[in-house]
């Protein structure tokens, strides 16, 4: 501690170490939060449903996604990444998961929303298995923190079914 440089170095090192500890505590405080999100998805319309030239099925649909994700936000949340996936089973794969729509929620004020849209990403099967297929629409989210651990969870909404014939 005998010179300015020595003291400045000791002070800065200690300050940064303590800052790391504060960030760790902030991340741990996220565990105290018990979120209670809700969501609902309606398939308003099947726009078209065809078998492509390469043999794979493709469907386009109009969706109404509404959700309340306000309880996911804490003081340590930077943003919430949310996406809607169609999940179904085929003879070849026990689980097929196709992302239809995603979005970024930057703040709590925008966390209660509804959106009326066609699927943002194409719903294409690996093969020709979609006629009459029953599928779940699952809303996944990733709570991205300002510092520390990222939490991910989902809500499964079941009971959706594709038409029996191409349109």
């Amino acid at each position: 501690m005998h010179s300015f440089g020595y003291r400045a170095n000791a002070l800065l090192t200690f300050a940064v170490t303590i800052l790391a500890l504060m960030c760790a505590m902030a991340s741990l405080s996220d565990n105290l939060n018990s979120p209670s999100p809700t969501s609902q998805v309606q398939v308003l319309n099947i726009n078209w449903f065809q078998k492509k030239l390469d043999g794979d099925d493709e469907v386009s649909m109009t969706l109404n996604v509404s959700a309340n994700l306000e309880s996911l936000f804490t003081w340590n949340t930077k943003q919430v990444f949310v996406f809607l996936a169609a999940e179904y089973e085929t003879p070849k794969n026990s689980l097929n998961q196709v992302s239809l729509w995603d979005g970024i929620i930057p703040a709590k004020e925008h966390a209660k929303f509804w959106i009326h849209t066609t699927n943002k990403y194409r719903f294409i099967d690996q093969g020709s298995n979609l006629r009459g297929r029953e599928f779940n629409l699952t809303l996944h989210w990733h709570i991205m923190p300002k510092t520390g651990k990222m939490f991910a969870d989902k809500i499964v909404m079941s009971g959706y079914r594709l038409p029996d014939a191409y349109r």
Partner: protein
Amino acid sequence: MDWQGQKLAEQLMQILLAAFAVIAFVIGYGLGSFQMMLLVYAGGVVLTTLITIPNWPFFNRNPLKWLDPSEAEKHPKPQAASSTSKKKATKNGLELGEEIVIVEEQVVNLDEQSMPTATLQLKLNFGNIHGDW
């Protein structure tokens, strides 16, 4: 800064930083604002820098007593310190023939009178060390 001052500076730094960290966390968590926590903590770091790094007078309340140069001139340098010699001594408690190996002839008494001796060595080996560290 003198030794006591350096110790005080180190203790002050650690206590101030830890205290500001706790205060900043409580404020940030209470307000629900991560940014507030960082701002309060940054303010605390700046304040601690201003208190502990510059050479304030209250850090120099126990200054080291260096010998005045004119006083040192009056005491000449003693003989060379590292001379090895063996002596047969017949002091009390020793068998005849037992050897005592004396490495340093010089006996350094640290009383007021001969204190200058050690200080004088310093002066002649390193130059006139004076002033603040």
